[in-house]
């Protein structure tokens, strides 16, 4: 990095140009066979080789251009930022803290008004284009944004926050978290369809069931850590899914459970009938009220998860989780019962997975084992890791980017004009995950918000100059 600062800007561009050519050659070598050729069937059912030089050129140019921009502009500016950051003062740290508080408060406020904001914006757009002022069209149009973006993202935020208790706080790598999500979803689906119990009764019950399963999983894996634990939890997730598929008498197998009752607002159902929500409040019939209700419900559940996490972190059990993550032997010799500590971590994390599951079942009205594949666990874990283990805000941002990005890809229909009609943008969502992973791991190896915020500190903050903080000093 040092040579960048000493040498002039010309050499930076020359170097970047060289790197760009190298990246282009590399891309050419990589994609020559993969992208340049495609086998296809012609009308006589014969295999023919299709040459796609145009697409190959796009790939190579994108790689070279990307490398050039990165090397010429991003790297030098980052070095400057690093130089500027090298002398942190107590003031900037305090600034960062209050900045963070403002961001989280602003984000929270935005979350609370989000559905109405969407309706307002859509109505405004409508007004700008047609000159007609009508909230009703805004209400109808907002359905997609509230449901696909709002609810979908918040479900993952909640799941990731729940998993964060197990992985981020207690340091127990759980690859089968989706199993608890499944337990929650199926307990609501089955108990509601068979016994007609209400959502508000089954929500806590689903949480309790999931927590029980968390303990059941916890017992055999008490002595495992790290990779071994990961493998066993992965297997556990698959077992639950296979049971759901094969125990057809109860779960109806791959057909899934359908016709699950919707949630009600304290007994007021969201149906078009005379007792329904819309009739009760004299509003025109619309499916959007239920979506908005679900939005606030999942927002409440997610915030509950966050609140419990924040509270627990300050309590002895939360402390014990964090200490357990750092050093298990030290924990035990300080008198902490690591068995119960681990089990409570599994149970608490699983409970929130169960809540999210029962919400999922109420929202979809249909559950099947297909919703609970390993990929879901992997996505939730990826969100936790990308966001920075243990950081609630980081995880929320990661979930918004990853899940919102996936949903956004569905909207990018104009890409069909560029890449041709058989281009389906949503198939590239895994590319988004891979890209985000690489970007975050290169720049922020500990996630977006990688620093653990201490849960206790003395308020009379002392200035500690950086020369005291060197390791091996004193």
């Amino acid at each position, binding site marked *: 990095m040092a040579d960048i600062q000493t040498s002039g800007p010309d050499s930076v561009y020359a170097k970047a140009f060289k790197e760009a050519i190298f990246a282009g050659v590399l891309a050419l070598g990589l994609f020559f066979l993969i992208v340049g050729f495609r086998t296809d069937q012609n009308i006589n059912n014969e295999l023919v080789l299709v040459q796609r030089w145009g697409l190959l050129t796009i790939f190579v140019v994108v790689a070279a251009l990307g490398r050039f921009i990165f090397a010429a502009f991003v790297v030098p500016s980052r070095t400057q930022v690093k130089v500027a950051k090298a002398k942190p003062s107590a003031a900037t740290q305090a600034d960062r803290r209050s900045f963070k508080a403002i961001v989280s408060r602003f984000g929270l406020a935005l979350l609370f008004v989000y559905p109405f904001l969407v309706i307002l914006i859509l109505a405004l757009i409508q007004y700008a284009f047609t000159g007609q002022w009508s909230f009703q069209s805004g209400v109808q149009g907002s359905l997609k944004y509230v449901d696909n973006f709002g609810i979908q993202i918040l479900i993952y935020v909640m799941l990731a926050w729940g998993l964060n208790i197990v992985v981020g706080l207690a340091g127990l790598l759980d690859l089968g978290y989706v199993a608890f999500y499944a337990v929650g979803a199926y307990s609501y689906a089955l108990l509601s369809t068979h016994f007609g119990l209400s959502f508000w009764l089954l929500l806590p019950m689903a949480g309790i069931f999931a927590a029980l399963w968390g303990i059941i999983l916890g017992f055999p894996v008490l002595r495992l850590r790290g990779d071994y634990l990961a493998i066993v939890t992965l297997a556990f997730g698959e077992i639950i899914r296979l049971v759901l598929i094969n125990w057809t008498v109860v779960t109806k197998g791959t057909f899934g459970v359908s016709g699950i009752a919707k949630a009600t607002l304290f007994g007021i159902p969201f149906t078009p009938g005379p007792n329904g929500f819309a009739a009760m409040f004299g509003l025109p019939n619309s499916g959007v009220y239920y979506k908005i209700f679900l939005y606030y419900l999942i927002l409440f559940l997610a915030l509950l998860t966050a609140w419990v996490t924040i509270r627990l972190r300050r309590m002895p059990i939360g402390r014990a989780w964090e200490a357990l993550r750092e050093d298990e032997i*030290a924990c035990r010799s*300080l008198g902490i019962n690591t068995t119960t500590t681990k089990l409570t971590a599994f149970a608490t994390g699983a409970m929130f997975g169960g809540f999210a599951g029962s919400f999922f079942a109420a929202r979809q009205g249909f559950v099947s084992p297909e919703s609970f594949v390993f990929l879901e666990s992997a996505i939730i874990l990826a969100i936790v890791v990308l966001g920075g283990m243990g950081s609630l805000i980081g995880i929320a941002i990661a979930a918004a980017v990853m899940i919102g990005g996936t949903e956004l890809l569905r909207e990018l229909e104009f890409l069909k004009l560029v890449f041709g009609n058989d281009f389906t943008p949503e198939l590239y969502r895994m590319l988004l995950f891979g890209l985000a992973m690489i970007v975050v791991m290169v720049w922020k190896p500990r996630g977006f918000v990688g620093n653990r915020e201490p849960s206790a500190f003395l308020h009379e903050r002392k200035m500690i100059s950086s020369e005291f903080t060197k390791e091996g000093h004193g």
Partner: protein
Amino acid sequence: MSQTQPLAKSSPLLSIENVETYYGNIRALSGVSVHADAGEIVTLIGANGAGKSTLMMTIFGMPRARTGRVVFAGQDITQLPTHEIARLRIAQSPEGRRIFPRMTVQENLQMGASLDNLEFYDEDSRKVFDLFPRLKERINQRGGTLSGGEQQMLAIGRALMARPRLLLLDEPSLGLAPLIIKHIFEAIKELNKSTGLTVFLVEQNAFGALKLADRGYVMVNGIVTMSGSSKELLANPEVRAAYLEGGRH
């Protein structure tokens, strides 16, 4: 900091009787008998790999003694779970310090005080800061960013927060500058004098340890080969030849 109860001279606070410990099939300790009376500083010296740390961890049941007994204050703790042993107010500053690196100094100390749910945190932390003023300066700093000596102070401080009756110290001088070692040893002595805390000190730094302790044991290959008062051991020609001559450090 300790709640020492006067014990009859006949029953030591800690006694390890004929203990054998294995790692798989490898015997690490063979028939070790060691005791510490209340109010004493006892040291166990020996070379690398002699089994000193194994003995210390055996007291905590990690690993468990296969034969023999560990008795603390008249209670057989050989088969007790580790956290139960800690609850009897045995605290340790383990080998390699094992502080919580991502937690602050204060949080580390709070972890030490978790047995009493932080009830005596303010009072005890003040005592720890009197002993190691450096820790107070670093109170909001993460454990992992402390220097080696400060980490050692934190490990001892964290152990003291548990209000121990018996303090086990595993090589507190490891990798530290002589000045820091002196400071830490003085702090241990001071603690023992003012509160009557029983200290069991495992050390490679034989000279310093014997200077500090009342009594000592010498361990070779999992066997206690010699024991006696510190003065005797310091004067013993065998001990001198094996551990002391060739640089007092």
